[in-house]
């Protein structure tokens, strides 16, 4: 009996000691993980560094470096097809991510932190449905369906393509928002309720602000997914609706010029800027 107590005491002592010298024994440390993280970043940036470098290459061949120049940026800017395609992609991605994030936020509130109710699994399955179908199938199916609507109503336009994008963006926007909601501490909301806040006040003052990182994450994910889509866009797009990835596919087939590298670099800078803004905004919120 006394032995056990002794052992227990020793343990506690070690505990205290450990706590005292945490810098030397970091419980969070795992060997090699930092290395992997650095490797991961290198792996991610390797192709991109190459891309950016070659966008400043004078030589029209993308393999041979001659000298530094801005020629391809000028050329890309004057290439109307590239410019239109890039703007169209941004426009679609903007509206698709906006709409899908709204829908996903609402759906996440209704499906997270609730008592299980009839239809919860169904709702969950429906929201994730676009993830379950291979894109080519969604593409063909949507094409046939929209063609029917177009012929029946006589309404044409970019709305169809945006709608198709909204559909597959919803599950992507939904995931981070849901994850954020699930992780949120209920204490604040309970406290608000205890202080006689109405559910709406609680939502507006407590829940929603706490959800913002998740919502931003969801919106960004949706934006990227929309910006990258090829298969569905190829099939659903109407006349004059050539997005940047569609332009790219054609170019890869028949020979790439560094103009594309230039546009990609421009996209990259724009997104870096956006992410930086998000980054600063969320950080300020925390302080």
């Amino acid at each position, binding site marked *: 009996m006394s032995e056990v107590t002794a052992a227990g005491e020793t343990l506690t002592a070690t505990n205290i000691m450990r706590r005292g010298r945490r810098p030397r024994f970091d419980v969070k440390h795992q060997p090699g993980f930092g290395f992997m993280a650095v490797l991961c970043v290198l792996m991610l940036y390797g192709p991109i560094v190459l891309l950016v470098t070659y966008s400043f290459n004078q030589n029209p061949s993308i393999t041979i470096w001659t000298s530094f120049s801005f020629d391809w940026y000028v050329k890309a800017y004057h290439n109307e097809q590239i410019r239109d395609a890039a703007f169209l992609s941004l426009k679609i991605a903007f509206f698709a991510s906006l709409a899908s994030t709204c829908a996903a936020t609402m759906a996440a509130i209704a499906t997270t932190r609730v008592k299980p109710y009839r239809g*919860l699994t169904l709702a969950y399955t429906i929201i994730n449905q676009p993830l379950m179908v291979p894109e080519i199938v969604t593409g063909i199916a949507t094409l046939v369906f929209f063609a029917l609507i177009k012929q029946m109503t006589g309404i044409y336009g970019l709305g169809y393509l945006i709608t198709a994008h909204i559909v597959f963006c919803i599950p992507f926007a939904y995931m981070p928002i849901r994850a954020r909601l699930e992780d949120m501490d209920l204490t604040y909301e309970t406290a608000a309720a205890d202080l006689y806040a109405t559910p709406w006040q609680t939502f507006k003052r407590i829940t929603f602000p706490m959800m913002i990182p998740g919502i931003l994450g969801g919106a960004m994910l949706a934006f990227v997914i929309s910006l990258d889509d090829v298969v569905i866009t190829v099939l659903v797009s109407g006349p004059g609706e050539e997005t940047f990835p569609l332009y790219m596919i054609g170019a890869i087939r028949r020979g790439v010029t560094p103009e594309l590298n230039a546009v990609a670099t421009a996209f990259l800078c724009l997104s870096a800027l956006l992410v930086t803004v998000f980054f600063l905004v969320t950080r300020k919120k925390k302080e």
Partner: protein
Amino acid sequence: MAATSSDAPVQETGLSRPELASRANDRAAMRRRLMLLAPAVLIITICGLAPLSIVLAYSWMQPAEYAGVIPQFSPDAWINLAFERDLFSDELLPNFAYYSIYARSIMMAGMTTLLALAVGFPTSYFIATRAPHRRNLWLFLITIPFWTNLLIRTFAIMLILRDEGVLNVILLKLGIIDTPLQLLFTNWAVSYGLAYAYLPLMVMPLYASMEKLDFRLVEAGYDLYASRFQVLRRVIIPLVKPGIVAGSILCFIPAIGDYVITSQLGGGKRMMLGTLIAMQFGPARNWPQGSAIALGLMIIVLIALFIYAKKVVARSNMR
């Protein structure tokens, strides 16, 4: 919907309110939920499920002469998933061509998932254990590349992997090899490309569950004289399992049906499910067959997701 509350033993979500009022509240909550769910569910049902039923109908029809379908019932497309009439003797034989395509697709998607997990797990753990402001910086670093167009990134990978590409040039200069390696148009190139593309889908859920990891449990593990590896295996991994499962599913599904990256980096010599389906809607002019293969693939994915959904719902109930 009062039935709901009697269905399952009531488990409070943490909000303290009188039991008696709960039934009326439930009804109001239900209405609110339906309204919240409506936009997402409606748009997906109309623009996602309705077209899908067209595909389902197609899979039971006959292919038309030149693309499209003839509205006549035929189970051929579904039978063809497993059996085919032999090209030259008309016997009904197991469809080995398809079996190997299924197997290859599953293997490639599996390889991709493992690769993404192998890189994504340590990375997200590393990020989650940094000080909060550092964490954001790391996340920032990881996110940026995904803002470049996927096709362009795939193209950049081609620049690295090709015969006279960066990697071969470096290896040749270092004297490690003396003839260029054929890296492009191999299974490895495809896995690498897919893992690269879907890494954020792995890192995000992993990071989300690691961020909330309770390190007191980890500490308890060390107090019980566990080694770092034991703690990792017995404490950390079980705790972040939902993140691992979610990340793997998110990675696996698009990888198994992928068409764009596979055809860019794979050299197109071997077919995958995505290319097989695309081909049925293309040069093979057999839309019913394409529909049937696609639905078959979807059913597999659906089962996996359904199990996952059940698990997640069950887990959130326990809280």
